[in-house]
């Protein structure tokens, strides 16, 4: 317990350093904020176009699809705001800057995570926060306390799953020093599950995104449960936190083995 507290304190100090570094480049800071806001505006316009042109997909109404997309955005932003650096191990290894993490008596994982914060990702969170109530009101769904409770569980589990998958792909670098191909495959997969209910793709794909690369737990299963869709039994949806924990365990193991494999670079 004391270790967790010390870790959080260290994380706070690292973030403070990172923020201070970011604010050194004030112009860039403001430009990124402005450009991302514009990009998100464009996203919302695009979505309103989608929802206007889109027709229901099977039993999924346009409002349901907005909830599906919104859930993805919120879970994903947990990764992109706080854990983005984990997907950049490749760069750190190639440039040799990873060495430094191994020279300080603080967990390298913590140093990696504390080394970056992508505040621009907060726009994704915001998008999700706007989309979900919009979608719910379109379909006339009402969430009680129980649903809100599960919404929180789903978002946290989904965030953890996103972080773990990105992290695991990144850890492949310890063995191969490059992981971009794998990363591309993953992007192609989640670009599909992000917007469409998994059931329209057939059973093979469903197995892939449920068991192998469980991105369906970022938004599909949560949406099925929270919107009361018939696409999957409730217990399968409620496995989300379990899957998150199993993945986290695997990631911790792979990370540890990767560190032992680490070969540094250069002189």
């Amino acid at each position, binding site marked *: 317990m004391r270790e967790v507290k010390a870790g959080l304190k260290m994380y706070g*100090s690292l973030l403070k350093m990172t923020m*201070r570094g970011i604010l050194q480049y004030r112009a860039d800071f403001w430009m990124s904020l402005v450009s991302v806001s514009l990009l998100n505006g464009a996203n919302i316009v695009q979505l309103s176009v989608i929802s206007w042109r889109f027709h229901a997909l099977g039993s999924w109404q346009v409002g349901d699809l907005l909830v599906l997309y919104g859930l993805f955005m919120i879970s994903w932003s947990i990764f992109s705001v706080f854990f983005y650096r984990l997907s950049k191990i490749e760069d750190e290894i190639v440039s040799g800057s990873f060495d*430094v993490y191994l*020279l*300080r*008596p603080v967990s390298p994982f913590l140093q990696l995570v504390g080394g970056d914060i992508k505040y621009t990702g907060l726009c994704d969170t915001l998008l999700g926060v706007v989309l979900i109530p919009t979608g719910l009101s379109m379909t006339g769904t009402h969430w009680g306390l129980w649903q809100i409770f599960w919404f929180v569980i789903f978002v946290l589990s989904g965030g953890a799953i996103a972080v773990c998958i990105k992290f695991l792909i990144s850890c492949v670098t310890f063995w191969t020093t490059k992981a971009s191909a794998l990363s591309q495959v993953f992007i192609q997969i989640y670009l599909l599950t992000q917007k469409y209910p998994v059931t329209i793709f057939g059973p093979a794909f469903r197995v892939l995104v449920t068991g192998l690369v469980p991105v369906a737990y970022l938004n599909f299963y949560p949406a099925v449960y929270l919107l009361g869709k018939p696409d999957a039994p409730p217990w399968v949806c409620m496995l989300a936190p379990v899957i998150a924990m199993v993945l986290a365990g695997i990631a911790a193991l792979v990370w540890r083995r990767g560190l032992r494999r*680490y070969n540094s670079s250069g002189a």
Partner: protein
Amino acid sequence: MITVKNLRKTYKIAKPQEGRFATLKSLVRPRYEERRAVDGIDFTINDGEMVGYIGQNGAGKSTTIKMLSGILVPTAGEVSVNGLTPHKDRREHLRGIGVVFGQKTSLWWDVPVIDSLNILKEMYRVDDARFRKNLEMFTDLLDLGPFLEQPVRQLSLGQRVRADLAAALMHDPKTLFLDEPTIGVDVIAKERLREFITEINRERGVTVLLTTHDVVDMEKMVKRVIVINAGQILYDGSMLGLRERYGGEDADIEDIVREIYREGGKTA
């Protein structure tokens, strides 16, 4: 005390394949070539010693330093620094050592030097009094004053190495590993670095292992040198002995080093 016994580090390097479908072959069944960066070395360095570790580029100096500091896990053999195994007792080991890579900074690039020192204080759990005392001393000896408030990316190389040295010593390590600390630094700044390192070794009894290509560094700073070539130790002994063995008392140290490297090149 540093003890190294039969230490090895082998890197696996993917071997380019020939013939038809070479690219496909190397994807499906890659063939690896082993490169022995460090090939069975032994040495002992006692507390308070200052030792020069020299060798050509790629001889295995940095790989040794990286194993001693715990960045790399050895392929075989034993390493012990202050009674600890670097890659196993990572955190405790790191509290007892300081490391400076002349080619890379371990400071935060975009923030003032003093901020880096402050977060290192937290990482190493240095208490306030000791921190203040060390900061005062290093500011004085290394003349950090003029650039303590400047971001690292704005420092000259000489200033950066000085800041890195201070950072590596804030937690009073027993052992200091310096990998080419004087590389690319001008003559006057070099002189100051040498004086500082010598003083730290003499006054505080810090054990120092330093790699360098600069013969003046060797002559002015160390009494003992270890020469490594192609991963193996060619010579381990006093500077005086090195002179006697390879050319006599008045021989130019640069000629001697050249001679050793040539000889090593033949046997390797």
